[in-house]
């Protein structure tokens, strides 16, 4: 970028929200308003390098954009004769009003949009960021951001969202949607969820700016000031919260001299404004109050944990999210002792939402360490390190784990034995891969370094329940097979003793495990132990919705389709047989006169339409697959003899290919726009 371009960019970022908001007043469509504003920017890019930056660049951009808007309306009136809609606008565009930008924020953060779209659109139209800047900040590609913004504009236009401030009845909901977007932007910058940079300061700054702006525009909303206070104080710690190598420094270890007193003071002021407005404190005011408690303590030891724990109690009542409850456990652990904290943390261990959240084992490790339970603490820190997505944070947690010397004899860890198990050479590659996935997850959930001997069936049950709550029955059973196979193997090697003692093997457990006692070999006894709480799940067949009548009629009416496809589809529809069964049919098995064919132990039968097509398709052939692939297979991929036409050498049509062709052919029929699967050809 040249100097002049940088200047234009700066002017744009300062002015664009006001320009777009002013245009909204005229054209009432955020997509169009932004386009017109962009036109003005393009004009600036063309003219300013030659003519110099005008005296009042903001007014210049606004004037050009407005002229374009008026032109646009004239054209629209001419072409679409929407005279009434625009009559009141006349040729004099309405004067901008002070709260136009506020209206724009309410629109770009409208709850009708998915959160990610709100974020992208707000940064674009209110923050003045380019698509590229947004993409870089959120570590996604430019087309992704462009799509989100385009989709958001379309949805807003379709929903006919008015350019108005929300009424009293919906204000609370709409406002919290705006606050959510701003805080999300802040957090994305503050705690960069991935990547090596712990802080992406530009996003924090952008969120702060948006929040401060909102506080001026909506000064009578306590939660707005609460959010601003929260962000100001969190931002005040930016410099102190990472070490020289980018590693995170926990709040109580931060050098408080590096906290930005200016921002802290601004945070205090904002919270005071919120308090002056009165009312029951909302979630942002409460969080800000907690942040203020920390900011007021001159040293970590002086922190008023009793007050903070009380604030967290109130916050957890208001929003009992797993994260808030986890933070509350930390505060309680410091205010009322580590055991009290641990009790609260342990109540969260089965929460699937925290399944991969590294701070849960991190906090637990802390509390265990303070209780003098070093080996457990170490295992938790290791688990936390494995879960942390941020490189600096992961390294930090690993160091915490390494600092704890675990005494005692060499123990066999879960991780080591899983690796030994997976190194077996008597399992197929596919099985190993599947087992590897399941057991890898288990290691992540329980801790790689946990001693195998200490593991109990209860722990395994809970870990599995948290890991795989939402999986299908089939996947659940696959995971269960992996665990059973692993424990059976471990038991024969005498690796699992202690925790898998007879106590876990009560008959009740075995029955609960869905295993009949008679099925168990000696080695399986231990398996019953570890997997005792885990029952296989019945695999529910998902109902396949047949293709609708009108769509099917249109499909049959099509011309120009290959004979093979027409035959296959008709046959699937008329016979109601499985796709694999139909594809496995051979010419010699067809009984064309009786309109049926033997497929294994069953019969497949059809009606007139299929009969006619089948006759045509197999004409002249006496043996081999009914449905053949288009091409002869390459020499390296010769199919088995039963899947090959002995006369032509062509292979049997594969399921994947047949499915692909059908999907492609029906993409315009399917209202969902994805194309149908062959299963859906079954009759109604």
């Amino acid at each position, binding site marked *: 970028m040249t*100097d002049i371009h940088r200047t234009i*960019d700066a002017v744009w970022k*300062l002015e664009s929200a006001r320009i777009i908001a002013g245009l909204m007043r005229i054209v009432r469509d955020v997509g169009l308003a932004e386009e017109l504003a962009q036109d003005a920017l393009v004009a600036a890019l063309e003219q300013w390098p030659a003519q110099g930056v005008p005296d009042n660049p903001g007014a210049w951009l606004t004037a050009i954009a407005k002229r374009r808007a008026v032109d646009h309306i004239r054209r629209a009136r001419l072409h679409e004769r929407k005279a009434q809609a625009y009559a009141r606008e006349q040729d004099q565009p309405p004067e901008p009003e002070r709260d136009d930008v506020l209206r724009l924020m309410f629109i770009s953060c409208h709850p009708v949009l998915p959160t990610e779209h709100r974020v992208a659109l707000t940064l674009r139209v209110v923050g003045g960021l380019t698509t590229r800047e947004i993409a870089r900040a959120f570590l996604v590609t430019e087309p992704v951001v462009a799509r989100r913004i385009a989709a958001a504009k379309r949805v807003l236009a379709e929903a006919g969202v008015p350019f108005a401030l929300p009424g009293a009845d919906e204000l609370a909901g709409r406002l919290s949607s705006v606050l959510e977007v701003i805080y999300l932007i802040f957090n994305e910058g503050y705690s960069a969820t991935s990547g090596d940079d712990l802080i992406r300061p530009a996003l924090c*700054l952008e969120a702060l*700016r948006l929040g401060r*702006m909102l506080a001026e525009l909506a000064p009578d909303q306590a939660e707005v000031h609460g959010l601003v206070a929260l962000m100001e104080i969190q931002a005040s710690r930016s410099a102190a919260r990472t070490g020289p190598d980018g590693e995170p420094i926990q709040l109580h270890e931060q050098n408080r001299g590096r906290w930005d*007193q200016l921002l802290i003071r601004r945070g205090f002021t904002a919270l005071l404004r919120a308090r002056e407005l009165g009312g029951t404190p909302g979630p942002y005011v409460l969080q800000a109050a907690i942040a203020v408690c920390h900011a007021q303590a001159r040293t970590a030891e002086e922190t008023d944990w009793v007050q903070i724990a009380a604030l967290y109690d109130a916050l957890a009542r208001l929003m009992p999210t797993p994260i808030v409850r986890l933070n509350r456990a930390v505060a309680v652990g410091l205010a009322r002792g580590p055991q009290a904290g641990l009790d609260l943390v342990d109540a969260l261990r089965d929460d699937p939402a925290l399944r991969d959240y590294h701070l849960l084992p991190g906090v637990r490790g802390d509390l265990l360490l303070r209780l003098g339970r070093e080996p457990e603490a170490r295992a938790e820190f290791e688990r936390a390190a494995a879960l942390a997505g941020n490189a600096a944070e992961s390294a930090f947690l690993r160091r915490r784990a390494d600092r704890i010397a675990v005494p005692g004899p060499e123990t066999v860890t879960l991780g080591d034995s899983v690796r030994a198990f997976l190194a077996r050479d008597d399992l197929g590659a596919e099985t190993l891969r599947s087992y590897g996935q399941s057991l890898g997850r288990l290691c992540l959930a329980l801790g790689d370094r946990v001693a195998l001997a200490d593991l109990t069936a209860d722990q395994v049950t809970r870990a599995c329940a948290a890991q795989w709550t939402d999986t299908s029955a089939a996947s659940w059973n696959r995971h269960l097979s992996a665990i059973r196979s692993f424990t059976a193997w471990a038991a024969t090697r005498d690796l699992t003793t202690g925790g898998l003692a007879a106590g876990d093997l009560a008959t009740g457990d075995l029955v609960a495990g869905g295993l009949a006692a008679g099925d168990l070999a000696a080695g399986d006894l231990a398996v019953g132990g570890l997997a005792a709480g885990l029952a296989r799940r019945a695999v529910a067949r998902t109902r396949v919705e047949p293709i609708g009548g009108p769509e099917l009629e249109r499909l049959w009416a099509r011309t120009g389709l290959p004979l093979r496809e027409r035959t296959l589809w008709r046959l699937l529809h008329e016979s109601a047989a499985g796709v694999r069964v139909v594809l496995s049919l051979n010419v010699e098995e067809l009984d064309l006169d009786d309109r049926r064919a033997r497929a294994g132990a069953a019969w497949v039968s059809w009606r007139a339409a299929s009969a006619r097509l089948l006759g045509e398709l197999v004409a002249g052939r006496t043996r081999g697959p009914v449905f053949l692939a288009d091409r002869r297979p390459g020499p390296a991929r010769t199919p088995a003899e039963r899947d090959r036409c002995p006369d032509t050498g062509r292979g049997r049509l594969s399921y994947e290919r047949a499915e692909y062709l059908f999907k492609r052919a029906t993409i315009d029929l399917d209202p969902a726009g994805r194309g149908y699967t062959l299963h859906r050809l079954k009759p109604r």
Partner: protein
Amino acid sequence: MRFLMMSKPTDEPADEKLYAEMGKFVEELTAAGILLATGGLEPGGVRVTSSGDEITVIDGPFTEAKEAVAGFALVEVRSREEAIELTRRFRKIVGDGESVIQQVFGP
């Protein structure tokens, strides 16, 4: 990023109009979340110099008053160009004179 904008004194006395325009400008920058702190400075002030172990304290005014700072604004912006643009607008309001902007590092 933060910039400190410092303005040097002028001979022109400030009038009503200037105060009103400045007030509006400050309000606007605050509303935009840009202005973090601002203020005017007393002329002269106190000069503290150190040389070896010796500390000298001298009350103003000083002869080189033109080099002194009369007012400051601490702004939080996204680029140097934004800071320049803001200073440009400020200068247009206050008339002839000089401002210096410097990026602030830390704390």
